[in-house]
């Protein structure tokens, strides 16, 4: 089957699924006779998207910026941590237990603290997104660095590679497939971090907009904001997926979206 045929088949499948879901959604609204402020129908959400378009775009861009900055920051910090853990045994002994212990702290619980320390602006949301993706990135990257095939390291050793060369020229590229699965996780988690941050305290962003809409019973606007958030999250995921295929062209794709 050609790639084009596969692509169009996937598109058709996606369109069908969406149509069925929207029909079911409308059916629930019509049959249960739900008021608009409980569950707006698809049509009123589309109307809200149109009516609040400038508002949604402004706040959407702000949230997208938070997510993107948080993603990049968290990924860099995660990779740096993994490299330190892999390169230095003392660091591993001290940092690894701390890292694992830190994961028992619910990220939601420290959101108010971040607001207190970093203010209600962009920074606290970026840091929220960073914190939420930091661990998956660090742990998948470290895993990849640790599980370099022994034969590759033997080969490099007999060729006279230094420790640093082994780390950066063998282990790090070898860790890319593992790191990429961490990046995919991070792409889905980063929007959660940013939105939680906005819920706890903000004056801009989709989370802020949803909170405002909720307070005013503008459920259709809430759904419209949610729709925007989905677009951003799926967009980021696709970007990361594309990046992964570019970074790891030798790995056969086992999953397709």
């Amino acid at each position, binding site marked *: 089957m050609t790639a084009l045929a596969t692509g169009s088949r996937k598109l058709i499948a996606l369109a069908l699924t969406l149509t069925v879901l929207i029909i079911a959604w409308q059916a629930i609204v019509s049959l249960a006779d739900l008021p608009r402020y409980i569950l707006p129908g698809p049509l009123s959400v589309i109307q809200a998207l149109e009516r609040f378009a400038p508002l949604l775009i402004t706040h959407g861009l702000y949230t997208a910026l938070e997510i993107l900055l948080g993603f990049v920051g968290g990924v860099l910090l995660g990779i740096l941590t993994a490299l330190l853990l892999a390169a230095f045994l003392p660091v591993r002994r001290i940092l690894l237990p701390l890292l694992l212990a830190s994961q028992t702290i619910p990220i939601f619980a420290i959101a108010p603290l971040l607001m207190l320390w970093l203010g209600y602006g962009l920074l606290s949301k970026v840091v929220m997104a960073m914190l939420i993706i930091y661990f998956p990135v660090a742990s998948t990257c470290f895993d990849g660095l640790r599980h370099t095939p022994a034969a590759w390291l*033997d080969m*490099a050793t*007999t*060729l*006279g590679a230094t420790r640093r060369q082994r780390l950066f020229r063998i282990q790090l590229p*070898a860790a890319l497939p593992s790191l990429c699965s961490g990046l995919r996780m991070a792409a889905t988690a980063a929007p959660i971090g940013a939105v939680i941050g906005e819920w706890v305290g903000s004056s801009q962003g989709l989370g802020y907009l949803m909170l405002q809409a909720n307070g005013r019973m503008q459920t259709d606007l809430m759904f419209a904001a949610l729709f925007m958030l989905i677009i951003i999250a799926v967009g980021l995921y696709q970007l990361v997926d594309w990046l992964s295929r570019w970074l790891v062209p*030798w790995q056969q794709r086992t999953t397709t979206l």
Partner: protein
Amino acid sequence: MTSVPGLQVANATLSYQQRPLFKDLSFTFAPATWTCLLGRSGCGKSSLLRLIAGLEAPDRPTLMVTDHRGNPLPPQGIAWMAQQDALLPWLNVMDNITIGARLRNTLDDTHRDQAHALLERLQLADRAKSRPNQLSGGQRQRVALARTLMQPAPIVLMDEPFSAVDAITRSELHALSIELLAERTVLMVTHDPREALRLSDDIYILASGQLEHLSTRKGQRPAELSLEERDALERHIMSQLGGIAP
């Protein structure tokens, strides 16, 4: 042939999980010869090879790896080839076989020409830009052989390098290796007596921590024996290894 050093190993001692594999082994291989090391699984033959290659830390610091006269080997004097091709999937064939020079930052045009010539010899010239995952098992092992040969090392250690390929490919690789490794001192670990008899000038059997030199009655090199003599020797090796003679 005087320029090629042989290999001398002295006081090799190694244990695996507190169980001694061998103790104070010492042996010398003549320059530009091909020696096969046979032994049953778990006898420590691969560990011995890894020890010589510097991939395993010796139990005692008295281990000496030198040329046949006891002089130190040149830096990067030992090349290594294992059962897995260990090709890096993110590099193409050309980059894989020149990785040694790339790591040492000594890659130049002469080196590249040499690599091209070698690929030509190994019938891989049209594969220089391919990635390892686009190659067959036999091609991959040929690339691994090319990478080993690209090293200017006079000593080549091989750990069952041909055991993961099919019989025809193995036979082709044997012929290529004999030709291309003629100027080097080779020590190869194998579990296949027939392979050892085909390739080697000398055969050693490692059993119970002892290295036994297998000599032919006429003092000939195994590779020069007639088929009948080889058959007889193969049966002898099998019985030495503790297996049932065919």
